[in-house]
């Protein structure tokens, strides 16, 4: 168990004039499960590799339990890492793969055997210990990679997109297993992924990144409900939040695409206080906060927009209406009973109490 501090971390690769990571700060408490998410190339794996000691830190300090670890060799950091392609040694049995780190450190043979068998029991690998990785399925290989980390009894687990090579069903299973594993071991874990569902379901806190910079750090709930800026609002949630550019006129949010909806009083007051009356801004609303059922149309009668259905998807319980109003495309996630055919012109109600507002220049959240 360990406390981790990353203070003003910068990374610049040689031959590159821009920083790949800039001013990254994170304090991870004991036993926390932290997720790094963001689009490809946002620097999330780079930070993980800097924590592991596989990449040099250009500027800033990385501390474990208050001790600066920038120069410490990977093996002296007390970390275990699970790689995207598992990095299992193909010529060794599952047992030897899991025991490798302990054997290298000349650990007592009997103790190594006990630890490998314990980890194998946790992961259900007991019957496969004498097999080579080539004779295992994808999910089993993933388990061996996890086992290798467990056996080490490391203070910090680093997982670099560990589930991205698995098929969808297996991924859901392994997600639960990793979450269980974290509860059982209580070890700090840092997990890099571009799959926000993994992050939302397992994380204590999520670090969301874009172009080498932290956009927001918070619990899944905070990121979803109180995004700091338009990027976070658009990245978290599937399908993504809809954005409508426009401005406040009187008590309404209006734009040239024919959107004219009444803004609730509380929101209106805050926006006016911050000087956004008559000023261009962007309104954001999540697909699930747009409704098509009659009772909602009656309830939110002052927040109705006309929409033309472009594509509709029936997902079982819900249906996704890919719609257009004026020149703006947006998605509504409605009850499956409110399914509409492409080409239909319908009315949709926006649940404005759930709306978010963003500054057009800074993209920061106003409300």
């Amino acid at each position: 168990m360990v406390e981790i501090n990353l203070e003003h971390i910068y990374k610049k690769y040689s031959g590159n004039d821009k920083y790949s990571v800039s001013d990254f700060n994170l304090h991870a408490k004991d036993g926390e499960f932290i997720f790094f998410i963001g689009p490809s190339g946002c620097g999330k794996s780079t930070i993980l590799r800097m924590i592991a000691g596989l990449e040099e830190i250009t500027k800033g300090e990385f501390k474990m339990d208050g001790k600066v670890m920038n120069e410490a060799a990977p093996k002296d950091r007390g970390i275990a890492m699970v790689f995207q392609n598992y990095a299992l040694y193909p010529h060794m049995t599952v047992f030897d793969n899991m025991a490798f780190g302990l054997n290298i450190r000349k650990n007592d043979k009997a103790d190594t055997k006990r630890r490998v068998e314990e980890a194998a029991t946790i992961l259900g690998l007991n019957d496969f210990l004498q097999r080579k990785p080539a004779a295992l399925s994808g999910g089993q290989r993933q388990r061996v990679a996890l086992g290798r980390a467990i056996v080490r009894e490391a203070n910090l687990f680093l997982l670099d997109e560990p589930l991205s090579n698995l098929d969808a069903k297996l991924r859901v299973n392994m997600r639960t297993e990793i979450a269980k594993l974290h509860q059982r071991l209580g070890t700090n874990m840092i997990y890099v992924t571009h799959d926000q569902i993994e992050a939302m379901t397992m994380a204590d806190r999520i670090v969301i990144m874009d172009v080498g910079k932290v956009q927001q750090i918070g619990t899944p709930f905070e990121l979803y409900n109180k995004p700091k800026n338009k990027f976070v609002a658009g990245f978290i949630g599937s399908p993504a939040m809809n954005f409508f550019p426009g401005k406040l006129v009187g008590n309404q949010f209006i734009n040239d695409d024919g959107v004219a909806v009444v803004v609730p009083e509380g929101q209106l007051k805050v926006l006016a206080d911050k000087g956004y009356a008559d000023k261009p801004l962007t309104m954001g609303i999540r697909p699930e906060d747009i409704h098509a059922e009659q009772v909602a149309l009656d309830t939110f009668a002052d927040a109705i927009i006309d929409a033309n259905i472009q594509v509709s998807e029936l997902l079982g319980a819900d249906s996704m209406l890919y719609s257009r109003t004026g020149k703006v495309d947006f998605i509504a996630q409605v009850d499956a009973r409110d399914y509409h055919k492409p080409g239909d012109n319908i009315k949709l109600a926006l649940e404005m109490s759930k709306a978010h507002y963003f500054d057009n220049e800074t993209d920061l959240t106003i409300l």
Partner: protein
Amino acid sequence: MHKTSKWLLGIVGLLIGLVWLFPFYLILVNSFKTPKGIFASVLRFPDPATTANYGDSFRALNFLGSLTNSLIITVAGVLLIIFASSMGAYALQRNHSKLSGGILMLFISAMLIPFQSVMIPLTAMFGKVHMLNMVGLVIMYLGFQCSLSIFLYQGTLNSIPMAMDEAAEIEGATKWQTFFKVIFPMLSPITVTVAILNIIAIWNDYLLPSLVLPQSQYTIPLQMFNFFGEYTKQWHLALAGLALSILPVILFYLFAQRYIIKGVTDGAVK
């Protein structure tokens, strides 16, 4: 149609196989003949057959002595080449600097230099430092054969992900341990290829040993030349000697066959 073409293919294959095997047939058949028998007909089966050639050749070649010399030179040379070129290729492949790229190109371009153009100055140099012996020869082989071996190793290393090294590094392995416990075992298919190529080249080599080795350290191919005097050629002994000298290579091939075929098919199916 399908069946006919299969048959045709089989027959063509058989014919090609026979062409390949024909020299072996000549060696084997004639090694059991008397000199007279050879000159009577090269192709015919031995009549009368004699095994005396083998005994005579064995003694004339000082077979045990020259076999030992051949074995020492081949084994030492091949082990050294595998050891040096696998590590060299690993260093060059994993280190992405411009210098490594340059060195690799240098190795590859060295393959183009014909041996004959450097053999005289090379032997002169080794002579100056009193290295015209087995040790000198092994060092020369290391130099000559490394380029191709590094090239082969480098190609295979390209397909081994860096994550392997990094996983081992995080688990506490030193660079040496990473190489010998993780990377080198993964290179075994190409190691077998490198070994075979070099064993064949060194075992059969005549020219370089003839320039370097003193008579006491003669290898089998050098001894063989004793059968070809200026005025007489003792074919019956030479062919028996050849059959004897091919034997170790064939034994090695039978032993390594499993790995050679594995090397060809490994990685074909993921």
